[in-house]
Structure formats: structure tokens, C-alpha cells
């Protein structure tokens, strides 16, 4: 395999051509498909070109946006964050953690203590050299009683952070966590200079430097001439425009005013696709839409009633009508096929009226009628999805009343308050992260109030298990538990659908978040 690795390196650094690569790989007795490098580059220019001014028109920016890492939530903030800053760890397009500002890391065998060796000689935009003090400051910004950071709960597991020298940071956890490097790749944890109080200038070690920042209108960044990462940050300048109106985004792309847009209107995207100058990029990520039932509230505390509801939803039709086909069916658990530890052997639940009727009969709740609370804020098309579900369930004899709630204040007044409501989850890169976010019985966001002792035990055991096979078995069992017992109905995973000018080129696009995990600014280029 080392020969293949070397060839890949040659191809990647443009020492050999694609054709030569294929010939030489075949000579090794391997098929070219064995190499992810060739696959990822298919259909796109392999050589990143330097230069150009990238213009993006994005939904998800607002005049109230702040660049404080503790307050990041929406698309534009995330994108600017990764334009201007780096974290210790980056998750690549294949979902693997790779070194960023940490050059390497190792864990103790129980995965409870992690040592991160920092990259040397990396400079912030202001010329200061990044060291362990900055890392300590950046992580502690989210810890402690006073912190109001959205990343606070993620770092709760940390018992102590200390530096052993200028370039080494040791993090001790409460218990083992084999996935800890993933946590540090989260957008809340970029490294900023020690002692920063005003974060709005976007000071960081990233590939671009903010030159103009009008939150909710437009942000202009210029290339950092001193950027430490090679083969990244190809554009000279990036203009990020905040465009909330779907039609204005499509028009801006169609007229060439911008090169990239996010969240295409699913109802009209096929028209956009017809243009010879435009390419549609879709990635099946971890984003899923759910109907959450509170398992401690009647009638949802009845397992058979929950199963009846799960069998009474036509997932195929949901994907076709609500997502216009831009998505995949879900199996009532939040793990996607692209994630490590996804268990393929589990049977896909189908729309089965007989089974739904059987479980309804068994539950003894035949004449029960339930209220499903929905709003467009829950997810795009949630109201349509609710009405569609009502019709589908009616065939199995289940009565669902769809209650339309106002968008404004939905997360405060409806979610976690009403026993049956629509929710979206953007998903997380690892199984453990997703489960501990919203399925563990003690977590704040356990929106189904599901409590399963076996699940909780397995979650803890699997977290510190470094043996992949054992871990996979545990996660497979947990996947079944969630699917069969939990109060979450997960009918579909939604694609991220983005539009770009054909001049834009890229390698494999990550699906964790939209726009290549919000890092398209440094990963994409003009061909």
C-alpha cells in the first residue's frame, strides 16, 4: 500500500497526471477505485487554481451576528469563523479527524487524558505566535460558571486543561471519550489570541483577514499572505453577502452577481439546474427532521402506540413531497449511513398499515386522537409534512390533529413543551456526540424524555471503548433501542442543497454542515 500512498502524494502535488496515476496504480494490481483521491476529484479540476474574488450569497446571517466563538450559531457566522480562524482539529470530508493547529495527539489507554502537540510557528493575523496560552484561553472561554457559551455543555467533560510546555496541552476528562478530538473540531472552539475581549475583528490564524464587516449585510475578507496551511485558501478575496430571500439568492446566482448560494429553494431548484452556467451541489449530511413524542406523557408513554405511529408514516412520500426528493428516508434513529458505526443490518421500517393497526390494537388506545404541533421554524415544510402525516396515519385509524404554531418563539414555547411536535437536528459528526446531545436520559435536550437504562449504560461504555469492533456492536444495539423504543419519529434526512457557478471547483464535499462543513472558503477554488 505504501506505493499507492506515494502515488497519491504525487498525484495530489501534481507531480504526475491523473492518466499516469491510473496506469501506475493498475500496474500495482489495484483498481483505481481503491484510491479516495481519484474518486473525490471526479468531475472536477484536480489542480486548485489560485486567485479570484469569491462572492457568496448566503441565508443565515443577521444584523445581530457576533463573531464571539461562544455566540456562534448560524451559517454566515460559522463561515466567517472558519475563514478567519482554525481549531486544533479539523474533520475532513471523509468524516475523519485530521490535525489542524494541533500537529498530533495521543490518548491514555482509557481515553481519559489527551495530549495535544501544537503546531509551531503559526502566527495570528497580528503577527503574534500561537502557543499553549492561547489554546488554554480559547477553551476556557467556554468553561466556568460565567460562561454563556453554546459550547459549554460539550466541554463539561473536561476536568482540567493544563500546558506542560509552550507547545503542549494536556486535557484530562471526567471519563474516557474515544471521540474527544472530534469535539475540539466544533465551531465553538477556534483558537483566538490569549486575552481577547472584542472578537468582532475575527482575529485568528485562518486563511483570510476581515477587511470589512457589516453584520447581516456583507463581510469582506482578504487572503492572509502568511497563512500556514499549504494547499488551502485559494481565493484572493471573499465577499460574503447575507441574502435571506430565497428568490433573491437564486436570481443573484443566475445573473452572476454571486458565485455560491446555500439553501436553494427546493421547489424551483430544478429550474436553476437547467442553466448551463450553474451546478447544484447536494450532500447528504446528518441533518434530520423529527416528530418528537414525550415518552412520559399519555398516550405516548405506551410503547405500542409509539410503534403504531412509527409504522403509520410513509417515509418515501415524505422525502418525495416535502424534500422534493432532496433527501433520504430515516429509520427513527439519528445515525446516517455515512457515519462510522452505522449498522447496515438493521431493517428499514416501512409504511405498514397492518402493523400500525396491530400495535394500535395492542395499545388499547384505538380512539385516541393526538395533537401534532408544527411550524415552518421547526423545519422547511414542517407544516406540509404534518398534514401529509395526518393523511397517512388516518389510513391506519390514527387521528392526528395538526396544530400550526407561530414561527416566532417556536423553540421557547413549543419545543420541549408540547408532547408531540416537529423538530430539526443538524446532527453531529460522531454517534456518541449525537446520542449524548439528545438521547441520553440526563441530557438537557432529551426532547422525548426517553429514559432507557440499557441505552445509558451502553453509551458510557462505548464512549471509552477504543476497540472498534466492540464499539460497533454496542452502537448497533443502541441504534435498535432508539429505533424501536424511543419517542423520536425520524422520517427523513435532508440534503444540503447549494448552487454554484460552474467556475467553482472542489474536491469531495463534506456533508456534516452545509458549504463543505462551513469551510468552503478555504477548500474551494476557481477552475
Amino acid at each position, binding site marked *: 500500500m505504501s506505493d499507492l500512498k506515494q502515488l497519491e502524494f504525487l498525484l495530489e502535488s501534481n507531480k504526475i497526471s491523473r492518466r499516469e496515476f491510473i496506469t501506475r496504480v493498475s500496474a500495482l494490481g489495484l483498481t483505481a477505485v481503491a484510491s479516495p483521491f481519484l474518486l473525490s476529484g471526479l468531475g472536477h479540476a484536480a489542480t486548485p487554481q489560485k486567485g479570484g474574488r469569491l462572492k457568496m450569497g448566503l441565508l443565515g446571517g443577521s444584523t445581530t451576528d*457576533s463573531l464571539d466563538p461562544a455566540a456562534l450559531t448560524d451559517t454566515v457566522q460559522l463561515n466567517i469563523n472558519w475563514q478567519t480562524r482554525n481549531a486544533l482539529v479539523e474533520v475532513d470530508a471523509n468524516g475523519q479527524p485530521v490535525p489542524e493547529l494541533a500537529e498530533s495527539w495521543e490518548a491514555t489507554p482509557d481515553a481519559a487524558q489527551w495530549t495535544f502537540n501544537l503546531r509551531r510557528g503559526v502566527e495570528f493575523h497580528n503577527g503574534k505566535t500561537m502557543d499553549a496560552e492561547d489554546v488554554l484561553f480559547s477553551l476556557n472561554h467556554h468553561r466556568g460558571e460565567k460562561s*454563556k457559551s*453554546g459550547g459549554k455543555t460539550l466541554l463539561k467533560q473536561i476536568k482540567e486543561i493544563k500546558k506542560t510546555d509552550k507547545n503542549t496541552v494536556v486535557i484530562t476528562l471526567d471519563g474516557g471519550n474515544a471521540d474527544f478530538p472530534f469535539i475540539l473540531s466544533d465551531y465553538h472552539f477556534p483558537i483566538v489570541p490569549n486575552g481577547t475581549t472584542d472578537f468582532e475583528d475575527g482575529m485568528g490564524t485562518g486563511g483570510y483577514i476581515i477587511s470589512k464587516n457589516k453584520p447581516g449585510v456583507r463581510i469582506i475578507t482578504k487572503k492572509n499572505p502568511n497563512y500556514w496551511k499549504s494547499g488551502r485558501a485559494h481565493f484572493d478575496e471573499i465577499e460574503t453577502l447575507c441574502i*435571506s430571500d430565497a428568490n433573491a439568492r437564486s436570481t443573484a446566482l443566475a*445573473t452572476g*452577481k454571486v458565485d455560491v448560494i446555500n439553501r436553494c429553494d427546493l421547489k424551483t431548484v430544478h429550474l436553476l439546474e437547467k442553466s448551463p452556467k450553474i451546478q447544484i451541489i447536494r450532500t447528504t449530511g446528518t441533518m434530520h427532521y423529527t416528530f418528537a413524542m414525550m415518552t412520559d406523557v399519555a398516550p405516548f408513554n405506551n410503547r405500542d402506540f409509539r410503534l403504531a405511529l412509527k409504522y403509520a408514516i410513509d417515509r418515501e412520500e415524505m422525502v418525495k413531497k416535502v424534500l422534493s426528493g432532496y433527501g433520504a428516508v430515516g429509520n427513527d434513529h439519528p445515525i446516517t449511513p455515512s457515519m462510522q458505526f452505522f449498522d447496515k443490518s438493521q431493517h428499514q421500517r416501512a409504511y405498514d398499515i397492518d402493523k400500525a393497526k396491530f400495535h394500535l390494537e395492542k395499545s388499547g388506545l384505538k380512539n385516541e386522537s393526538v395533537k401534532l404541533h408544527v411550524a415552518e421554524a421547526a423545519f422547511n415544510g414542517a407544516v406540509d409534512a404534518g398534514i401529509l402525516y395526518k393523511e397517512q396515519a388516518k389510513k391506519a385509524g390514527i387521528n392526528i390533529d395538526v396544530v400550526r404554531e407561530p414561527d416566532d418563539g417556536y423553540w421557547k414555547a413549543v419545543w420541549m413543551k408540547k408532547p408531540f411536535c416537529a423538530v430539526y437536528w443538524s446532527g453531529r459528526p460522531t454517534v456518541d456526540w449525537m446520542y449524548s446531545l439528545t438521547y441520553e436520559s440526563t441530557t438537557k435536550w432529551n426532547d422525548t424524555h426517553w429514559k432507557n437504562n440499557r441505552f445509558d449504560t451502553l453509551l458510557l461504555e462505548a464512549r471509552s471503548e477504543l476497540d472498534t469492533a466492540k464499539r460497533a456492536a454496542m452502537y448497533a444495539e443502541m441504534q435498535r433501542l432508539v429505533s424501536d423504543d424511543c419517542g423520536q419519529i425520524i422520517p427523513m434526512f435532508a440534503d444540503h442543497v447549494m448552487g454554484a457557478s460552474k467556475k467553482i471547483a472542489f474536491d469531495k464535499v463534506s456533508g456534516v454542515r452545509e458549504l463543505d462543513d462551513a469551510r468552503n472558503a478555504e477548500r474551494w477554488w476557481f477552475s
Partner: protein
Amino acid sequence: MNKILNMVLKRLGLGLLTLVIVSMLIFIGVEALPGDITEAILGQQATEETVAAFRKELNLDLPAHVRYSQWLYGIVQGDFGMSLANKQPIGEMIGWRLSNTLFLAVTAACICVPLSLILGILSALYRNTPFDRIVSMTSLSAISFPEFFVAYILIALLSVQFNIFPSMVTLDEDMSFFQKIYEVFLPCLTLSIVVMAHMMRMTRAAIINVLSSPYIEMALLKGIDRRRIIVEHAFPNSLSPVINVIVLNLAYLIVGVVVVEVVFVYPGLGQLMVDSVAKRDLPVVQSCGIIFATTYIFLNLTADILSRISNPRLLYSN
């Protein structure tokens, strides 16, 4: 003249009172909405702890009346305060957007006010001719369409089809005046089309109304040219209602253009206010509300003064 001064002073006093009441209403309204800024900003990530820490930092743990009086105290001294969401001074945030909003409003007014006055006078002059009918029908159809529809039609034609004007507006301090005019052309045209009908119809109706008075008949009998009658005798006497309509439309151009701002991605005050309501950024909402209310009060006052000056009967009556 004393009478006018008297009226202005009285109106200003009342206006001030209105402003205080408006600010109280906005405050109560935003307070009554479910959730506050901490939850809106933290979103799904809001845990009790983080929310509590955030609230304390923003002084949101103080009772409502204390926060309101603090804000009022600041505004009396000309201090709009800081945005709760990103801690930028509100004065700066609003200043730039207000100038954008005013720029769009003034440009639109410069196009539509003269045009609708001229069309109104011409329609009155050529009453019931095909010209009058066409002008009436066109303007009435234009006003009957929702403004976003007019905007999309203009974009589809002038931006997508022929690519003459940009479909969205990018404004920059470094742009020259003519570049700016070019950028705002489509939103400006949309607004003009939408507000023109009001003013034009009112001009026409007011002139026609005056045309039936005895002194016009007298003028006719004296053999004065019809055009001269309308421009010199009828129009000045019908100014009062026309001014009122024009000023109301000007106020609309400043405070009622949120939809047009969204469609053309225009960085104006309306968008700022909508964003801030969604995030429960109370000080910003308050400041925008005060600016909008002031605009209305000021323009109404202007309308009253102008219509009194233009109408001697009102000026000298008791």
C-alpha cells in the same frame, strides 16, 4: 405667522408625548413576546445555566420598569445604547442604515412626486379622454399588485432577461453618487410604481373638484385658456389635500419598505428592525421604532404647516 408658530409648538409637545407612549408600547410588546434575547441567540443551545449567565451580563435580570427608565434616561441624553446581540453602539448601526433608507426614499420621491403631479394635472386637463383612461388604468393596476410582485416582475425583465440593472443592491461608502443611483434603480422604480397611483389620483380628484367651483366658471367665461385655468387657478387651490397625500406617501417610503428591502437585499432600517425583533434585541427595536415614529410625526407636522400656508382660508381663520 404667530398662529403657525403656536400650532408647531403645540404639535411638537404632543409629538413628544406620542414618542414616549410609542416607546412604552414597543417595550411592552417586545416584553410580551415569548422568550428573550438570550434564548433567541443561544437557540437550541440555551441551557438554564448559560441563559442565566447571559441574562446577568446583559442586565436582563433587572425588572422591566428599571430597564425601561434606564433606556429612557440614555435616550434623553442622545445615547441610543448598545445592541444586546453584538454589543455594537446602536447609533453607528442605525446611522448607516438610516442614511441608506433615506437615500432610497429621496430618490424614489424625486421620481414619483413630480411625475404623479404632472400626470394628475394632465389627467384632469384631458379628463375622460383615452389618455386619462390609460393613465388611470395603469396606475390603478400597478397599485393593485403587491409590491413584491412588481419587484419580481422588474427583476425578471430588467435583471434576468436583459441584465441591465442589478437584482440586488450593494452599497458602499466609496461608491460615487451615480453608481449608487444605478444600484438602487430597481427598488426605486418599484416603490415609485407602487406609490404613484395615490398621489396622481388625489391630484386629479382635487383639481376636478375645484374645477366645478363658480370662480373657475367665471374664468372660463372670461375666456381664459383651459391650461392656464388649471395650472394657475385650480391647482394652487387644490394643493392642500394633495400635500397631505404626498407627505403620507413619503412617510411610507421611509417606514413601510420592509418587503422591498428584503426582495432587493437592501441594507435599510426595516431589515434591521425585523432582525432585531426576531432576536428580541430590545434597544435596537426601540431605537428603530422611535425613528419611525419621529418620521411620521415630523412629516405630519410638515403636511399641516404646508397645507395651512397653501390655504389662506386656514391661515387667517379663527
